[in-house]
């Protein structure tokens, strides 16, 4: 119906309007309207209408997107924290279990987005025993939780529980983003617990050239006033900050690309899953945010081995286990230089760095990384977990 109307409209313009305009402006102008040179793009218009209709339909009735669906049990809870233990899909290749620690910003299911787009799935297929910490959604009553509580209470408790369940006296840790920084801190404080440490885009040196590093620095951001006023850091604040880092790509290009690929079902499915994750921001407990900004972005204490958690110095030289440092080459959140320095600060002899050509999130969801990088990471881990 719409297409028929368009055809009639273009036909009418072609037969009546253009000649009329031409008659009106004939003679005195250099430029002249011509009717014969341009065929009305009826087919293109037809496609555009169809695509727009589909876009409107998806916006009004978005399909249910199921994320984080790899089967698992919840084996430990405390406050909002849940420890997930994934069901094995093949025979275990070794006893040392792996604990994944995600950032306190956004939800951890980015590591298990959907079947076929899941780091967890790749690791399970390789026979690794996988656990993951889901920090949950902090309430206002959690505003006083600090780095001490997260590292010396939550992560320590989780490690103990995993050791008990698996019967292994040591575990492997894999931390992503802020979770990577916390994993490094934990390993420095409890080196006896950790057999292997994998860091994914972990911020270590905060005095590097980066947008967040500039915005979070001392003269620009008064974190004390902010936390005193807000308690927890609102999810919307973080979301707005991340969108602002690449405004054209996040607010325009992404949707143009979606429109162009709207007929590709795989693309649409992946797009909606990613959108769900990106918009699933959670608040960050105020106190841990204050410490992270102050001790990290403003004073850069971790690289100087001056950071103290509950009176104990976090000395990165205490890290002696095998280390794999995964860095995203086009990371705009944690600049590669921020993570690169880590291997030079630790005492481990067995340490590797992989700089992969992708972005901060691409490291865990890009098809290329899941196909080429993660099987290699799994092999690296298995060979060191015997």
């Amino acid at each position: 119906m719409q297409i028929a109307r368009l055809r009639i409209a273009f036909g009418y313009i072609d037969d009546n309007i253009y000649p009329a305009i031409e008659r009106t402006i004939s003679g005195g102008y250099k430029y002249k309207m011509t009717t014969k040179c341009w065929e009305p793009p009826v087919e293109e218009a037809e496609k555009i209408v169809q695509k727009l209709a589909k876009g409107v339909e998806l916006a009004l009735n978005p399909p249910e997107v199921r994320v984080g669906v790899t089967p698992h049990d919840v084996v430990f809870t405390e406050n909002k924290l849940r420890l997930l233990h994934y069901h094995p899909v093949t025979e275990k290749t070794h006893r040392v279990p792996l604990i994944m620690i995600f950032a306190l910003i956004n939800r951890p299911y980015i590591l298990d987005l959907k079947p076929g787009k899941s780091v967890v799935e790749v690791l399970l297929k390789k026979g690794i025993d996988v656990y993951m910490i889901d920090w949950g959604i902090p309430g206002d009553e959690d505003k006083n939780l600090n780095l001490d509580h997260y590292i010396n209470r939550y992560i320590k408790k989780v490690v103990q529980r995993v050791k008990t369940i698996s019967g292994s006296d040591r575990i492997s840790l894999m931390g992503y983003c802020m979770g990577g920084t916390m994993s490094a801190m934990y390993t420095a404080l409890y080196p006896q617990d950790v057999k292997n440490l994998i860091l994914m885009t972990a911020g270590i040196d905060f005095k590097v050239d980066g947008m967040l590093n500039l915005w979070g620095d001392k003269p620009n951001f008064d974190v004390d006033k902010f936390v005193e006023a807000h308690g927890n850091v609102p999810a919307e604040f973080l979301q707005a900050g991340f969108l602002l880092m690449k405004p054209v790509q996040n607010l325009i290009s992404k949707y143009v690309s979606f429109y162009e690929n709207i007929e590709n079902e795989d693309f649409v499915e992946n797009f909606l899953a990613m959108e769900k994750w990106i918009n699933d921001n959670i608040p960050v407990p105020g106190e841990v945010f204050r410490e992270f900004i102050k001790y990290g972005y403003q004073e850069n204490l971790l690289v100087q081995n001056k950071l103290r958690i509950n009176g104990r110095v976090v000395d990165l030289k205490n890290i002696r286990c095998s280390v794999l440092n995964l860095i995203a080459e086009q990371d705009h959140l944690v600049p590669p230089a921020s993570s690169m320095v880590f291997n030079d600060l630790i005492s481990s002899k067995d340490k590797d760095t992989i700089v992969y050509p992708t972005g901060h999130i691409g490291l865990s969801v890009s098809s290329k990384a899941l196909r080429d990088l993660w099987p290699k990471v799994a092999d690296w881990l298995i060979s060191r977990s015997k």
Partner: protein
Amino acid sequence: MNEEKFDYIGFYKKFYEAWEKTMSEGIDMWTKSPLLSAGETGDKTPGFDPVVYYKRFYEVWEKTMSEALEIWLKSPFFAATMGKTIEKSSEFKKYLDEVMEKSLKNMHLPTKSDIDRVLASINNIEAKINDLWDKIDELKLSAKASPKKSAE
């Protein structure tokens, strides 16, 4: 990056280049469109596809604007202005919250802080229970390891 290091002239130049490239592309697109053909004879432009033209214009705009905006967002001036705005809005929010808290207290009503304190206490109790469970597990393990000793 501090105020001295930031090249404002370079930034404005970049911004001008972005504007200039986008505008040239736009004008080019318009002049080549068959709606305006040169001369009075009415030259034909076969195979004209407005979508391709629009796409080229959009791509130029996207690339140049992203570059220019990135430089702007990385400028110390932007960071300082944004920081100041956040600071002032935080002060205002804190003031409003304090007024609300005092008003509720004067009316002898529980405030959000009171509820948060209760919830935090429940969380502490849960943590203590978890510790006790761990202790019980440890005792069970040691009892299994030395059954005679525990029987005595």
